[in-house]
């Protein structure tokens, strides 16, 4: 093969690989991103409809109760609350009064059905999203005060 032909083939091949990869990436990113939403935003109706998203916050003290394998609890940012239900086994570090992140969908009833409850490795660790939800709610509260 001549020099320029070879170069054209290499460039063409490289570009098509990149193109295919970019198409895959964009397509996958579109359908597989979960937005983080705070309980206050859920209360304000800002949560995505028909699409899975994540809620970060605290598990409200005393809100946990079981119904066989289904667990009900409340996620809060100390300003607003979202009732959550989850069927399955909770991660070890899931505790009332601690930070947590849940992923799932909002039902029309206003309940959140979690498909995943995120586990962590360290009991002193607070997920940044949960922390941020709390801080934001605190700010809004402070701002509401005269």
């Amino acid at each position, binding site marked *: 093969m001549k020099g320029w032909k070879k170069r054209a083939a290499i460039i063409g091949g490289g570009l098509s690989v990149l193109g295919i990869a970019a198409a895959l*990436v964009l397509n996958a990113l579109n359908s597989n991103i*979960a*937005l*983080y939403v705070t309980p206050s935003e859920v209360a304000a109706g800002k949560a995505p409809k028909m699409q899975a998203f994540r809620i970060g916050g605290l598990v409200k003290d005393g809100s946990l109760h079981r119904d066989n*394998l289904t667990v009900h609890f409340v996620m809060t940012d100390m300003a607003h609350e979202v009732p959550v239900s989850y069927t399955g*086994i909770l991660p070890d570090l899931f505790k009332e009064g601690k930070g947590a992140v849940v992923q799932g969908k909002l039902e029309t009833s206003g309940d959140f059905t979690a498909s995943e409850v995120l586990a962590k490795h360290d009991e002193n660790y607070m997920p940044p*999203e949960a922390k941020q939800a709390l801080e934001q709610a605190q700010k809004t509260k402070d701002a509401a005060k005269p």
Partner: protein
Amino acid sequence: MTPEIGHFALILALCVSLVQGTLPLLGAHKGRAEWLALARPAAQTSFVMLALSFAALAWSFYVNDFSVQYVAQHSNSQLPTLYRFGAVWGGHEGSLLLWVLLLSSWGIAVAQYSRTLDDTMVARVLGVLGLVSTGLLLFILLTSNPFDRLLPAAENGRDLNPLLQDPGLVFHPPMLYMGYVGFAVAFAFAIAALLSGRLDAAWARWSRPWTTAAWVFLTMGIALGSWWAYYELGWGGWWFWDPVENASFMPWLLGTALLHSLAVTEKRGSFKSWTVLLAIGAFSLSLLGTFLVRSGVLTSVHAFATDPRRGIFILTLLVLVVGSSLTLFAWRAPKVALGGTFGAISRESLLLTGNVLLVVACASVLLGTLYPLIIDALGLGKISVGPPYFNAVFVPIMVPVVFLLAAVPLARWKNTQIKEIAIQLWIPGVLALLAGWQIPRMMGGWTVLTALGSMLAVWIAASGILQITYRLKAGLPPASFWGMHLGHIGIAVFVFGVTMVGGFQEEQDVRMEPGDTVLVGGYQFKLIGVQEAMGPNYKASRGEFDVSSPGGPTNKLFPEKRNYFSSTMPMTEAAIDAGFTRDVYVSLGEPLEGNAWAVRVYFKPFVDWIWGGCMLMALGGLFAMADRRYRLRVKGTDAPAATPKGAKA
């Protein structure tokens, strides 16, 4: 007193590293032999200092010196001795100390096993390693000193995170770090070659065994981590596309590309610039991995409580390394001579295709990992990118790589005919089609993905075995030949394991009372009861299960739910009956009302093949390193006679 000795040794190590990182490099530039000669002793001294420092920290753990803050945070007087040792790298400060200790042990290995290299080259390589070490040591001393005292001393320690109290953890981080840090050697060789302008086949030959060694450690480290997650996290997964897992996987992908690109550079003198870029990339990704793990910027199951200032320091270090090495590359690259030319279908072109695909795959993982950070930094909200993204992007990119893998060893250098390759591949091709048709049916249902996976696995394994048999007729092939095929067959085993687990695993969360049975994957699980049991530093609820297959023996499994005295968090300890063709896996959830427990039961066909495949790959790497041509004394220039006939990439 011991912690102060450790601290002092650490400071001395910093001074020595600074010398190692400056004088030999200047000496190489100015041609001053006495400065060059400093490189080896400096590397040795810094290793001794760091080993002393590390030993001091380990001693503080051993004697439960809770006046050292780091010990108080990560140990406890009840902690068994083995885990006290593992706890040395159970936290941020200690794991960084391990990082530099391992870096300096690579340094001393280079100093020791480079007698055939000329002194200038050695000085440059060790000099670059010294600079890296200086950066990391500054980081430790300024932001994360493991020897900080706690006054007044704590009564008792806070204890090591119970998840980390496991033999797997004692070995996983050192292995992984050996891999990460090992790419610093490949990086140092590349920078040294750029500095000297001698980017040639001899450089590639020196660099190759070191790169392979790092790659072997990284492979083992990742496999150990995945295995640890599988049995210790208690939820049966082996890979989660978690940011921290990705952080170790990205250097692996680039490292794999680098290995193959080095082969071309050594044999044909081509791809030089590409190889240098890969070496810079692999090491930069190792640093990025450290940054991601240590800065806590990402939500991850691995994220431990962290300090953002540390993140900024590592990020600065990363920018310095990438920036300066790319500048050097841009300055020197135009002088790099072109290597041999090659045709459209040749071993070079096939390796290049595989290489480009690996880099693209790595880029897609990088994008998925950093995307949430970028979106957050731009103020567009907080998002997470989940495993479906990675599966949707990564798998399609890797399929052609795995497919090509069977053909590359058959292709000749320079130019080859497709016909020649095809003639040797029709048997594996037919076997692969049969496997794709039949294996999923035997396992319980045909799907496109399981068929594709089975085909690819058989395709590679069959062509590998066939090539080995042909080659054996011509006499015993060299170690590198075995290395290549072992590594490739390892991929086949791995792909097969992943396919079978992905397609045919069964999982059930159930509520069980003593006497209840559940049927999963043809196995019957019967809960006999749950009893209290005592461990050295925990109390456990211990379940007893009878697991039986129809007509087979009955096995007992004992999953536990542990409560460590020093912590409020419970720990799930899964029970696994491992087998060649399947694992059965039981873990206890929470107690429900009465005697009932929530129980998770898994049937995992061929899951151990995943790690078995990784071990084969690592073994392949060891064979490749053992090839005798690396042990021959070749000075500077490449002696053709040193290459045994038939030695392949």
